[in-house]
C-alpha cells in the first residue's frame, strides 16, 4: 500500500516534470505565435526588468552594507582587513548576486506572471487564444521566457555593482577601511570566469523562474482548486518551486564549474 502510494506520487511528479518541459519547449518554439513579438518582448522586459529595479537596488545595497560590516569584523580578527574588497566582490559576483536577484525577481515578477496566467485560465482567455489557432504557451509565456535571458543577467549585474558600492560604504566610510585597498582588491579579485559564472547562473535562474511561474499559472485549473483559490495556489507554487529550483540549480552550476 505504502509502496503503491510512493509509486503513484513519483509518477505524478514525473508527469508534471514532463508537462513542464513540454510547456517550456512549446513556449520557446512558438514564441512568435499571434504576432507582435517586438511589442510583447518590450512589455516583458518592462514587467520583469524595469519594474524590479527599485527592489533590486534596495536589496543589493543592504546586502553590500551587511557584507561590508561583517567582512570588516571577521577579517580584522585575522589581520586580513585588506581582503574586504575581495570578499565582498567575489561573494556577490559568484553567489549572492545571482541567487538574491533571482529570488527578488521571482518574488515580484514571477508571482505576478503566475497570477496573471491563472486568471486568464479561469476566465477562459487561454481557451479563447487556443481557439484563434494561436499557440497559447508561445503567445503568453514565450516572450517572457526569452526576455528573462536578458533581464536576469542585467539585473544581476546591477545587483553586484550596487552591492559592491554598499560594501565600500559600510567598510570604508562607516568603518576605517582603506578605500584604495578596497577598490584595488575588487579590481584584482574578479576574473572573467567569475563574471561568466555570474551571468550563466542568472540566465539559467531566469529561464527556470519564468517557465515555472508561467507553467503554474497556465495550468492553475489542474491545481485541484477552482477560481480565485486556484490562482492563489498557482502563485504560491510558482514562487516556492522557483526558489527551490534556483537553489538546486545554483549548487549544480557551482559544482560543474568549480
Amino acid at each position, binding site marked *: 500500500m505504502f509502496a503503491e502510494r510512493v509509486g503513484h506520487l513519483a509518477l505524478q511528479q514525473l508527469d508534471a516534470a514532463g508537462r513542464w518541459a513540454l510547456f517550456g519547449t512549446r513556449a520557446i518554439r512558438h514564441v512568435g*505565435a*499571434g*504576432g*507582435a513579438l517586438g511589442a510583447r518582448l518590450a512589455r516583458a522586459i518592462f514587467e520583469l526588468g524595469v519594474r524590479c529595479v527599485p527592489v533590486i537596488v534596495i536589496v543589493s545595497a543592504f546586502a553590500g552594507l551587511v557584507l561590508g560590516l561583517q567582512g570588516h569584523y571577521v577579517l580584522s580578527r585575522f589581520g586580513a582587513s585588506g581582503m574586504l574588497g575581495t570578499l565582498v566582490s567575489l561573494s556577490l559576483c559568484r553567489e549572492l548576486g545571482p541567487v538574491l536577484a533571482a529570488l527578488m525577481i521571482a518574488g515580484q515578477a514571477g508571482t505576478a506572471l503566475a497570477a*496573471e496566467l491563472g*486568471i*486568464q485560465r479561469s*476566465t*477562459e*482567455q487561454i*481557451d*479563447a*487564444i*487556443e*481557439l*484563434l*489557432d*494561436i499557440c497559447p504557451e508561445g503567445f503568453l509565456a514565450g516572450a517572457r521566457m526569452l526576455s528573462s535571458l536578458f533581464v536576469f543577467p542585467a539585473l544581476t549585474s546591477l545587483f553586484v555593482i550596487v552591492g559592491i558600492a554598499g560594501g565600500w560604504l559600510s567598510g570604508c566610510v562607516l568603518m576605517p577601511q582603506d578605500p584604495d585597498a578596497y577598490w584595488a582588491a575588487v579590481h584584482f579579485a574578479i576574473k572573467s570566469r567569475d563574471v561568466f559564472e555570474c551571468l550563466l547562473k542568472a540566465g539559467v535562474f531566469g529561464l527556470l523562474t519564468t517557465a515555472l511561474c508561467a507553467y503554474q499559472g497556465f495550468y492553475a485549473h489542474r491545481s485541484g482548486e477552482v477560481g480565485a483559490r486556484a490562482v492563489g495556489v498557482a502563485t504560491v507554487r510558482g514562487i516556492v518551486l522557483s526558489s527551490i529550483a534556483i537553489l538546486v540549480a545554483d549548487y549544480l552550476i557551482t559544482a560543474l564549474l568549480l
Partner: protein
Amino acid sequence: MTPLPSDKPPILEVRHLRKSFAERAVLADVDFDVPTGAVVSILGRSGTGKSVLLKCIIGLLETDGGHVLYKGESLKLPEVRSQLRQSSSYVFQQNALFDSATVFENVLLPLRARGKGTRKEWEVKVRKVLARMELEESSGLYPAELSGGMQKRLAVARALVTEPELVFFDEPTAGLDPLRRNAVFSMVCELQRERGFTAILVTHDVQEALVVSSRILWLDAGRVRFNGEAASFEASQEPELREFRDNIEALRATLEKSRSRHSPTL
C-alpha cells in the same frame, strides 16, 4: 426563422460522442449533423452538457469516445482541427475577453493571428465591425470599463471580424436583462442573415431558439432527445419535451416580470 439548406453536405457530423467527468456521464452517445448554412440551437436544462458538447466539438475538451467530422474529415487530425479553428469562431458564455487589451486590440487579435492581409486592412475591418456593434466610441477602453451588454457585443464583434463560416455561440445572451438580451440577439440574427454563416447556438431560451433556428436539438440526460425543425419542436406533444418547454417559458415570464421593474440602460 432561418430556412434549412438542403443541397449542401453537413459542415459538421457528430458521431456517438461520449464525455464523463469522474463517474458522471455528461454526454452519452450524442449523434447529430449540422447542415451548412443552418442555425442549429441546442436546448436543454442546466447541467445537461450543452456547453460541454460545444467544447468537445471544438476540441477544448477531450472526449471519451466518438468523433466529430468537419467537412467529412475527422477532427482528431491536428490539421483538420486547425482548419476548423481558422474558419470558425466561438462566443464564450462569460465572453473570455482579453482583459489587458483594449476593445480595438481584442477585435484585432483574431485578424493578426490569421495573418492574412495588411495591418491597414485589419484596422479597416476592425473599425467596420466595431461600428456595426455600436462600439466605435469605446475602442480605446478596456473590457472591464464596458457594461455587460457592451462586453457581449464585443465578444460577438471579436467572433465575427474574421468572417467565419461557422460560429459557436455558448449562451450569447445569458446573464443579460431583457433589453440588452434583445439588442444582442437581434444583432446576431441580423448578422447571420447578412453573412449566412453556419451557427450552433446553445441557449436556455426556447423563444430565442424558435425565432432564429432552422434546426433544434433538445439535449436531456446527455442524449439528443429531439432533433428536428423548429416548427416540429414547437408542435411536439411528447410529454417530457412539453414539460421542458412549458417550464422554461413560465420561468422566463417570471424573470422578465421581475427584471423589467428595474431594467438598467443598455
